[in-house]
Structure formats: C-alpha cells, structure tokens
C-alpha cells in the first residue's frame, strides 16, 4: 500500500490519468463458524450446537451459545448459524414477533406458523440476505417432534433431522445412515430397513457422537456442545465438553 502511494506522488502530473485506481470495498458479511444439528422424535425434538465463535483462525469465544429459546409457555427453539450478527438479529426480531403474536391473538404461535413466519422474514431480505442456515425445532399441533430447516433466503422443509453450518457436510451423511437408516438392509430378508422414531437417550448419544467426530476433523467446531431438548414439559438443556484444540 505504502509503495503504491509513494509511486503516485513521484509520478509527473501528466501521468496521473494512467495510474491504476485504488478500489475500496466494504464486505458486509463474515463467517463465524460453528455447527448446529436437530433431530425430532415421537414426543420430543432436540436442537444442538457447539459454542465456539470464530473469525478466520482466531477463537473469539469458547462459550457463545447459539441455540435460542423463543418466548412462550410452549416454547420453540431456533438457531441461525453462519454470520452471527445476522443470526442474532434474525432470532431477536423473530422472538419479538412471536411475543407480539401471543399478545395479539391470545394463544401461542404453532411450530408450523413459526416456520412460515421465518420464511417471510428471510425472504423479506431476498436482495441482502441474512447469511445463515436456520433450524427451528419444537412440537407440532399433535405433540410430535418437529424440525424445520431453512436456506438463507427462506426456502424451507420439515424433516426428521438436519445438520447446518460449517461441519454440516461431515454430519449429514452420518445422520442419513444412523437416523433414516439409509443404505442399511435387514440381513434376514435383504429388504431396506425402515426408519422408526428414536428414543431420546439414543438421540442424545447420536448427537454427541456426531459432534465429537465433527470436532476431530473440523477446526471451526469444538469447545462445548449445548443440547436443548423440547418436550411437553418445556425446554431442558444439557452441556457436553468437546475438544478445545
């Protein structure tokens, strides 16, 4: 930079027009790493995320929880992973919309409606998107576990399980295999195995395994795992230490 300025000053006035212009540009996005993962069961849903917050190769925080509980008696849990400033903003604005809904309509916002609300909020910024992978977890109208996943501009789907963020590509095939039993056959009949609901204990074990493996091979994942569990009794939290290197 300094040499470029020096050359410009030393050049004769007539050559100024041929000097290369210096371009300045502000980048409104950055990547804060981290990974999230959600699995739904018969009467519960879990949403887990690691608590590491990074920029580049630096660790900004080893404990910056990214899984948020929305306000209400029958709470939903949500995480918007990617660019954390956008993620925090989306969740804060969503929490306010959910709170106002309960005051205006005198009933809690259902998981299905919350998912549609998130879509309109994300698509509302279609031309300057929130740079996040969003996952919503809770219970549906029938009390069954529900997981909704979103792309940055609001395209969404209800699923059995979904990983998002930095190590999503490492975890997702593992989930296909262990939750939806993809590529597995019954040894007796040779027929493909049919996926059934997992117990909460098995789900939590699977989540811990998935994050331990992702931590081993991905530098942006580690420190602590925060597992939030929604049941009819509300939200409970469990912490699990991950490797800190």
């Amino acid at each position, binding site marked *: 930079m300094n040499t470029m300025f020096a050359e410009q000053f030393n050049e004769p006035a007539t050559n100024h027009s041929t000097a290369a212009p210096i371009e300045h540009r502000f980048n409104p996005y950055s990547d804060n790493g981290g990974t999230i993962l959600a699995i739904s069961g018969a009467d519960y849903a879990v949403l887990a995320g690691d608590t590491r917050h990074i920029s580049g190769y630096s660790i900004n925080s080893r404990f910056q929880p990214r899984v948020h509980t929305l306000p209400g008696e029958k709470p939903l849990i949500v995480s918007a992973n990617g660019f954390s400033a956008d993620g925090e903003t989306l969740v804060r604005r969503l929490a306010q919309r959910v709170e106002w809904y309960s005051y205006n309509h005198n009933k809690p916002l259902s998981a299905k409606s919350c998912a549609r609300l998130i879509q309109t909020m994300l698509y509302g910024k279609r031309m300057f998107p929130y740079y996040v992978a969003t996952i919503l977890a809770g219970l549906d109208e029938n009390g069954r576990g529900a997981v909704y996943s979103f792309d940055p501009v609001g395209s969404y789907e209800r699923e059995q399980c979904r990983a998002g963020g930095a190590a999503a590509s490492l975890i997702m*095939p593992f989930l296909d*295999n262990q939750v939806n039993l993809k590529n597995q056959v019954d040894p007796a009949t040779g027929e493909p195995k049919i996926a059934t609901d997992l117990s909460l204990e098995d789900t939590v074990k699977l989540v811990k395994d998935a994050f331990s493996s992702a931590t081993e*091979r991905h530098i942006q994942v580690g420190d602590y795992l925060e597992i939030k569990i929604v049941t009819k009794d509300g939200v409970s939290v469990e912490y699990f230490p991950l490797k800190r290197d």
Partner: protein
Amino acid sequence: MSDPSSINGGSIVAMAGKDCVAIACDMRLGMQALTVSNDFPKIFQYNNSFIGLTGLGTDVTTLSEVFRYKVNMYNLREERDIEPETFANLVSTTLYEKRFGPYFVGPVVAGINSKSGKPYICGFDLIGCINFAKDFVVGGTSSHQLFGMCESLWEPDLEPEDLFETISQALMNAQDRDALSGWGGIVYVITKDKIVKRLLKTRQD
C-alpha cells in the same frame, strides 16, 4: 466450476483393520453435472499394492498407465514384487516430478507388506506429499462427507468382514450426499493371503 479436480468427480476411501486393509471407490465419470459413464473404476492393482486415483479423469487414466510401466520396470530390475511402502514413494516422486505443472489427482495407496504382514495405507496431495495414516484416508469430491462418516464409523482392529461393512457404509452414505460421486462402487478387502473384490449395488442418482 472450472477447477480441474472436480470436473469429472469421484471418491476414494481406504481403511486399515486387524491384519487387513480395504480400499473402495465410486464408479461415476461426469462432465460437470452430466454423467457420462457409470463404469469408471478408480482403483488399480500393481502386485500387492493398490492405488485409488481421483481427480481429473484424463490424469487418472494416464497415471494408472505410468504406474503400470514403472512397476513393470521395477519388477524386471529387482526380480521381485514392489511393496506398498515402496510403491507409495514411487507415487510421491512421480507426482513431484511435475511440481510446476501437476497432474490433478488425489491418490490413495493401500496394501499389506508381504514380508512383515503389516497393513499400509496413505494418501497424497497432487504434488506427492505423503499423508500416512493409521486409521483411514479419503480422497475426491466427497472427501468432507467421507471424513464425517469414517470418523464416526471406524474403530480399531476390525476383522475383514466388519471392515467391509464399515468401508461400504462410509462410501455409500458419503457419495449419496455428493452430486459428483456415486453410480455404483467397488470395494477391495485385502488380507495377507486373499484379495476379495466386491461390487456395490447403490442408488443410481
């Protein structure tokens, strides 16, 4: 995507077990999103050494022939088979010769040393830097997915049949999450006195 290493697609994985090794690959050859062939194996055998070559299809074919030539010359000069460790170094030096105009490949070598009976697996970057691993090595367009699968499924001292199941599940579930890999698979399970080659029937999309 004009990146030479992801134009044709393809994946490789190798794992070590108890007195055995396994190496597996997919069968796809594509031109970006278009699949051209579903019969393009990427594993080649030279004596008791196996190499999986992923990356630019033309370099995969060229290098497989270069290695056949070089191993044949080794056999004539030394009057003995090449060991996996020696073959890995031959791969390394061959790739480094093209340091400033490399072959766009991500090779993986697997085999069992005929003298010591020890399993040997390793991977390389495109200019021949050896990555020696005790557990597993991966390569190709679904390497991220393979790392996730292998890190969670692999365990020490697997017997040949269990190693086959582990490597097959790792490969199949990884390639199902990669648009550039899949369309079948081949698995070699290598023990000291037996080589078993199996074809995997996988989803065709």
